[in-house]
């Protein structure tokens, strides 16, 4: 594939640990985030949100708000330019609620005013007459006959059934279990923010922190009643995303206010509003049955998975598909039936979050693997090795794993990683309870747990997934320079170094500059599905190779050596390339097809100390082995792995958006707890590099796998320490000290249609 490499040695090429250009500015507080954007004459936007989970809107009174000082615009659904709706996969979401509100926090009106405070006060002065309706907050209940229909299409957002082999076959040993994953927040430190600037031509420019500029554009323009050519999006500084920025939040509102006032308008959510403003990880109830032979070979997996999609669809259909396709895990499973359904409820909408459906099912199937190991009397690591997918084995969608499937290798490498020294810790701060000074060793038990997970990389099921890159090679007074333009969103994952490293490697030029991402170039696709290195990295690589072809022909024509860039660049070379991964097949009725591009695998081993009397937990160490294909920037890869594990640890032991009747009870970082440095243990990382033939330099995505199996590994360690069943995450202290096993409240035969559930 590669043409002859340039002879000039440049620093910072593929395979080196390159420092991020934004690292120091971020640490010093100098990085400009979207919420820092300003323009002269700028107004501030604010949003009025529904206080009800479900209600009819009988009337809205805005005249008092409009008369208030500093107020420049108040917009309700009656004043919108169009009736268009928006949404990632279904256009089911109104820009501002019309007759009905379907969740607490749904936008009802927007205001622009001279100051943020005036905007907030004006929002409070709007009166809305609500007629509250009964709210449905249990997704299984939403699916039952007679449940009130929250959307005209019914309460099923989507349904994915995987039927593989003979799912009703029998097995020597069967284990059944029900599991629950609570709602997790992406908790990006930078809340939602954007600045809209009206243009002379009647259009608007929007500077916004997002994951996918072009998808935002596709949803925004129709809701503004403008053609896409009149709306330009520019990426503003993103303070983390983790899926929460895949959906439109304040984009349309900010543009509407700017167009209405003919002034620049900035909207910024505070932390509390951010909890209501963006989608979260889908809460899930999972009902599983695993069958195996006496020797521990898996015979079947049957599962019913119910995902709570909340009030609107967002990316639920794709999340449901992932939960189902990877519902049996990285194992050889000859027979399976997975029935996954996403339900509309009156909870806040759920959508994308790191791991995207694979997280929920992994928690359940890894719990099942441990239960099976216990029942068979086989070591849990050995059971996983015995059933590990190998190269060429089909997953339960019948798609074979091409490239490499080093599942047994990562399991063994991870299991063999050195264990942390055995306590007893003397400093109470290192024990469960940490700074709380609770134990000097009393009640502390140590446990070790293990888990493996898998997920796809890139978009699936026939989606036209591509990325565009423009590479210009030129010369200025300081010598050769390459400029790269893409619309890809740097959300913290490190794409900015990856692109630069690829250009340096391919073109042998050390000075590489990145143009600001915007919609004047073709789409790069989303910074999600662990896909940007593969896709935008691939596009940059392809553009570099076209540039190099021109360079080589100039070299041939002039008789100059091809690495004599200075001599060959009298004219710049400018190439724009769109890169597509290989086609994937759309889903059929039984989901038996090659729907995915490639698969990612990781294994985690957790060591946890648990104070069994207080139920508090200290994770002592995580070891992980992950197949990354090729580490383009090893330091950044380790950063992704450690960060992803922290997020998985959060889900295991503390992170939960606590809902009561559709209300978020802990919409702040005081009570939505994220792991601190005292909660996050040292990580032993083993990078396994089996290059994937289709990927640039063989680099698979790395962002999501760390979040998938770290959670079940930690919970397995807690189970080992306490002997508790713990079928729900996050594990709460009560679950440990009172030992009340998790009950879903429903009886569902695993693999059956959840519409036939019976209340337990």
């Amino acid at each position, binding site marked *: 594939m590669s043409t002859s490499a340039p002879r000039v040695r440049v620093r910072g090429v593929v395979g080196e640990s390159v420092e991020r250009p934004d690292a120091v500015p971020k640490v010093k507080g100098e990085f400009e985030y979207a919420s820092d954007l300003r323009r002269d004459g700028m107004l501030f936007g604010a949003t009025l949100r529904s206080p009800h989970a479900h209600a009819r809107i009988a009337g809205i009174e805005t005249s008092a708000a409009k008369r208030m000082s500093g107020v420049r615009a108040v917009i309700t659904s009656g004043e919108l330019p169009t009736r268009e709706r928006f949404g990632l996969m279904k256009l089911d979401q109104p820009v501002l609620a019309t007759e009905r509100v379907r969740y607490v926090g749904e936008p009802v009106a927007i205001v622009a005013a001279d100051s943020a405070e005036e905007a907030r006060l004006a929002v409070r002065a709007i009166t809305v007459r609500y007629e509250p309706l009964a709210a449905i907050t249990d997704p299984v209940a939403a699916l039952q006959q007679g449940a009130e229909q929250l959307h005209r299409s019914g309460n099923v957002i989507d349904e994915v059934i995987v039927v593989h082999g003979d799912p009703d076959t029998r097995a020597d040993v069967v284990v059944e279990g029900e599991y629950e994953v609570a709602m997790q927040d992406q908790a990006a430190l930078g809340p939602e923010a954007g600045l809209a600037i009206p243009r002379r031509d009647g259009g608007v420019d929007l500077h916004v922190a997002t994951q996918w500029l072009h998808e935002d554009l596709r949803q925004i323009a129709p809701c503004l009643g403008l053609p896409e050519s009149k709306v330009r999006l520019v990426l503003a500084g993103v303070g983390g995303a983790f899926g929460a920025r895949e959906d439109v939040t304040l984009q349309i509102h900010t543009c509407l206010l700017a167009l209405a006032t003919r002034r620049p308008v900035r909207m910024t959510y*505070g932390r509390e509003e951010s909890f209501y403003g963006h989608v979260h990880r889908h809460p899930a109830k999972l009902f599983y049955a695993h069958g195996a032979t006496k020797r521990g070979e898996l015979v079947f997996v049957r599962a019913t998975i119910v995902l709570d999609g909340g009030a609107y669809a967002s990316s639920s259909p794709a999340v449901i598909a992932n939960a189902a396709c990877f519902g049996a895990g990285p194992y050889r499973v000859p027979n399976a039936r997975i029935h996954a359904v996403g339900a509309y409820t009156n909870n806040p909408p759920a959508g994308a979050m790191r791991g995207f459906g694979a997280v929920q099912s992994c928690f359940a199937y890894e719990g099942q693997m441990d239960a099976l190991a216990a029942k068979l009397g086989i070591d849990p690591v050995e059971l996983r090795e015995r059933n590990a997918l190998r190269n060429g084995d089909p997953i339960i969608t019948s798609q074979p794993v091409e490239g490499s499937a080093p599942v047994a290798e990562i399991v063994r490498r991870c299991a063999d990683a050195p264990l942390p020294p055995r306590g007893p810790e003397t400093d109470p701060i290192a024990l469960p309870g940490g700074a*709380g000074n609770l134990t000097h060793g*009393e*009640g502390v038990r140590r446990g070790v747990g293990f888990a493996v997970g898998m997920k796809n990389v890139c978009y699936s099921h026939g989606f036209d997934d591509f990325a565009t890159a423009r590479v210009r090679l030129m010369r200025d007074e300081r010598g050769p320079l390459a400029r790269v333009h893409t619309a890809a969103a740097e959300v913290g994952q490190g794409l900015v170094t990856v692109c630069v490293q690829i250009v340096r490697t391919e073109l042998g030029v050390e000075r590489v500059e990145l143009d600001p991402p915007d919609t004047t170039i073709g789409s790069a696709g989303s910074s999600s599905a662990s896909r940007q290195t593969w896709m935008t990295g691939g596009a940059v690589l392809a553009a570099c190779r076209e540039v190099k072809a021109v360079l080589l022909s100039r070299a041939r024509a002039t008789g100059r050596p091809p690495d004599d860039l200075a001599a060959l660049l009298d004219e710049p070379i400018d190439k724009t390339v769109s890169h597509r991964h290989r086609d994937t097949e759309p889903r059929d009725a039984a989901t038996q097809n090659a729907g995915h591009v490639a698969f990612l695998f990781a294994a985690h081993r957790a060591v946890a100390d648990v104070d069994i009397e207080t139920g*508090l937990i200290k994770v002592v160490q995580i070891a992980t082995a992950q197949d990354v294909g090729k580490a383009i920037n090893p330091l950044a890869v380790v950063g992704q792995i450690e960060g992803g594990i922290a997020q998985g640890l959060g889900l295991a032991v503390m992170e939960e958006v606590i809902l009561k009747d559709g209300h978020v009870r802990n919409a702040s970082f005081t*009570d939505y707890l994220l*792991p601190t440095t005292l909660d996050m243990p040292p990580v032993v990382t083993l990078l396994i590099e089996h290059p994937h033939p289709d990927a640039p330099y063989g680099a698979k995505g790395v962002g999501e796998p760390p979040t998938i199996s770290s959670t079940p590994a930690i919970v397995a360690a807690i189970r080992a320490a306490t002997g508790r069943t713990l079928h729900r995450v996050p594990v709460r202290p009560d679950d440990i000290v009172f030992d009340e096993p998790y009950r879903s409240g429903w009886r569902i035969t695993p693999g059956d249609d959840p519409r036939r559930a019976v209340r337990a």
Partner: protein
Amino acid sequence: MSVQVARHVGEVLDNLSSVTGATLLAGGTDLLVEINFGRARPATVVAIDRVAELKNLERNGRVRMGALVTYTRMLDDDPGSPALREAARTVGSPQIRNAGTLGGNLGTCSPAGDTLPVLAALDATIVLRSAKTERRLRFGEFMTGPKKSARRPDELIVAAEWDDAGPAQTFMKVGTRNAMVIAVAGLALVVDRARKRVGAGLGSCGPTIIRAAEAERFAEGLFADAGWERASRPSDAAAKEFGRLVAAAAKPIDDVRGTAAYRRHVLAVMGARALARVAAIA
């Protein structure tokens, strides 16, 4: 919003008596959160963090801690109570400990304020001063409800005072994170061997800090039997009974941070552990 920067106690007191609704600002770690959440909109703020007199820390049998002593100071200097130092270590993060003060913890007077169980267990006196008078209230009289105290709007919390109770003390706090967490339940236990007195203060387990009086009397009996001046090891049964009495004193509720049942349970665990820990120190 107007902000006055005071340099002397007198200036603070003048402001408090002349400006109605003047709000004091010490480290700001509670007040700024209230303002950001829109729960407080003070018209006048009086910054007291430069008032040197309020930073004093005196120890000579009797401890007097000025209202502006920060958590970091409690950790770096001897604060005259090992339990208070342990409580200071549980507070927030380094940034919060650098800014947050004893007076602010008392001013907010939350049942989850971590110094408060210690002040209760020490039977501390809170010194309040207005332009007209000075009042001295026992902690139990000072705190009257959740975020409610007997402080009058024109009064400044000047200091807290208590008898140096010696080394046999501890503070424990339960939270579902290993640092930077609001207490789900807290316990301060002070055994003053010289004065033959046990104090047990419970945090986050009721509308105010609760003294576990029955548990205190029970422990005093144990120490009388074992010899007040000596290190001892209570039997498991005695430690457990002490824990049971601690838990029985609590009036916990279910809230977003924890269940009442769990709070009762961990209070019993903390009580037993604290007694064994403190009995070993003479």
